[in-house]
């Protein structure tokens, strides 16, 4: 019964979304008729850079807003919430991973994770942070070092920990492997998949690297979703 219910629960649902940075309707960056991401679903969206992927993700995370009711994240309409509500909603429910600059460089991994917990008002113990870091194959000697001393591979793994510590229902990853070499990319992807599965959260990964498709059950091209620009 529960499973059937879940089938119909959406992580993200978008209806008739149009978005443009300028006032002119000809400069549409996004035009999405109907699109959704199910709960606990893993989705890979590929597309070349500059096609509006990041704008799309910023709208989902509430950093950008639209004037209409076109985006629902975890059943909440994004333009119904006030600014501060969106901030705390994002802190609690969305884990975000970028290509680079996922961490405050002068803070240690543990401090970076603690900041994320502060905004979600989650009381996460030091030991569970450490547990998470060791689950992500980060050695104890890196835990208290400023993160700019870490390697790119280590940084991205700390980013996973940072994104997952609040047990969000949705993980958004924007080109998370593009700064990694092949070996680190594979480690990163398998750890990310393993952790999201453990948490039962939805994963939305956007990248130009189509080789990542192998990890996902659902794969889409961004140009199929967004019809803006394809005249």
């Amino acid at each position, binding site marked *: 019964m529960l499973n059937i219910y879940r089938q119909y629960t959406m992580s993200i649902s978008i209806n008739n979304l149009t978005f443009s940075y300028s006032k002119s309707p000809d400069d549409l960056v996004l035009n999405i008729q109907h699109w959704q991401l199910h709960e606990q679903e893993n989705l890979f969206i590929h597309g070349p850079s500059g096609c509006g992927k990041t704008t799309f993700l910023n709208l989902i995370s509430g*950093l950008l807003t639209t004037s209409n009711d076109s985006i629902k994240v975890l059943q909440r309409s994004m333009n119904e919430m006030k*600014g501060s509500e969106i901030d705390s909603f994002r802190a*609690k429910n969305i884990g975000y991973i970028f290509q680079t600059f996922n961490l405050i460089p002068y803070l240690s991994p543990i*401090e970076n994770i603690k900041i994320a917990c*502060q905004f979600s008002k989650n009381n996460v113990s030091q030991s569970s942070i450490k547990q998470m870091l060791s689950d992500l194959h980060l050695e104890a000697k890196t835990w208290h070092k400023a993160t700019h001393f870490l390697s790119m591979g280590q940084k991205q793994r700390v980013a996973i920990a940072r994104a997952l510590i609040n047990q969000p229902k949705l993980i958004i990853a924007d080109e998370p492997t593009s700064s990694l070499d092949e070996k680190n990319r594979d480690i990163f992807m398998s750890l990310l998949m393993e952790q999201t599965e453990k948490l039962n959260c939805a994963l939305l990964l956007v990248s130009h690297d189509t080789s990542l498709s192998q990890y996902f059950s659902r794969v889409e091209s961004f140009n199929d979703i967004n019809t803006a620009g394809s005249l």
Partner: protein
Amino acid sequence: MILTLASKSLLNRKGSVLLTIIAISVSLFVLLAVDHLRQQTKQGFASTISGTDLVVGSRTSSINLLLYSIFHIGTPTANLSWKAYQNFNSHPQIAWTIPISLGDSHKGYRVMGTNDDFFLHYNFGNKHPLSFSAGDKFNDTFDVVLGSEVAQQLNYKINDPIVLSHGLVSTSFSNHDQYPFKIIGILNSTGTPVDQTLYVTLKGIEAIHKNWQNGKKQNEDLTPKNITAFMLGLTSRMATFDVQRDINQYAQEPLTAILPGVALSELWHIMGSVEQVLKLISYLVILASLLGLSAMLVASINERRQEIHLLRIIGAPPSYIFLIIELEAILIALIGTGLSLLALTSALIAFQSTLTAEFGLHLSANLFSMNNLLILGLVQIAAIIAAAIPAAMAYRSAQHSIKH
């Protein structure tokens, strides 16, 4: 956590932050030093003379008379005759007088010729009489009593012989070598120019000068012909203006009698505009350093767009970003304030003896006055206001934190 973030962020930008902190502490140092100096000088001047009703010298301006007779600053214009002094010494409304005869020195310290009445009637601070830490008053023509500072700096003891010089240079060619004086007493510290002065008898002064000019002569009348000035105390305060008029209208020679308190306030009145200018300058220096703080933070925000974006992504509201910048400004201002207090206190301690010896300024190293606390508090508020511009910029950047 926000404090960790702000302080580690500052540590991460050590170079520019350190320079800003130094700029703020230097400007505060100037402000506090000027203000401290002003307050302490005023207090020092005011406490130098107390209980003296009038100071009398030859006709001159009241400030000039006050400065050379009491503070030993500048040189007297003319002397007054012994006859005039004797005349007023026996004035029925005058209770006591202290003759002052200046012009000689010893190793850069002023020598003042006077008599035992000085030790009896001269008061400083809140009507404190002078007291001896060793020895006693004059006993003989060539006795000398030292101010505490003189004895300490030159390492003199009772019964040591010393030689006076003509004029006020420590390497004077015209030493009164034939007439060594003997140290008979050393005064306790007063925190006034008394500490930097040597006291000899009027006869002693007369003796060395007569013989300086005429070669050795013995058994001569050593009553002085002139003195520089004299202080006096009245039998009744009510008589002040009567006696002052009597002196100012003395027919035999032109004299000036001044009320030390009145002359001092005239002096402060003149100094007032200088004080205001100094104050204005030090406030402008503070303003400049706070603008520097603001500029440094503005520059940092451009470097930190990614950081701000990241904080927004993990759920920081724009107000949090505003707060971080303000907190950084407050931390810088507080550290700058602490440093300036530390630097000024150590400078005061380090240069205390030099300032006392050179300028007769006794400066307390204690900076924690109500006035200073108020100034420091205002500077913190000013720092918060100065940081409002960069903080608002960061706030806006946080609101429109979009990466393309």
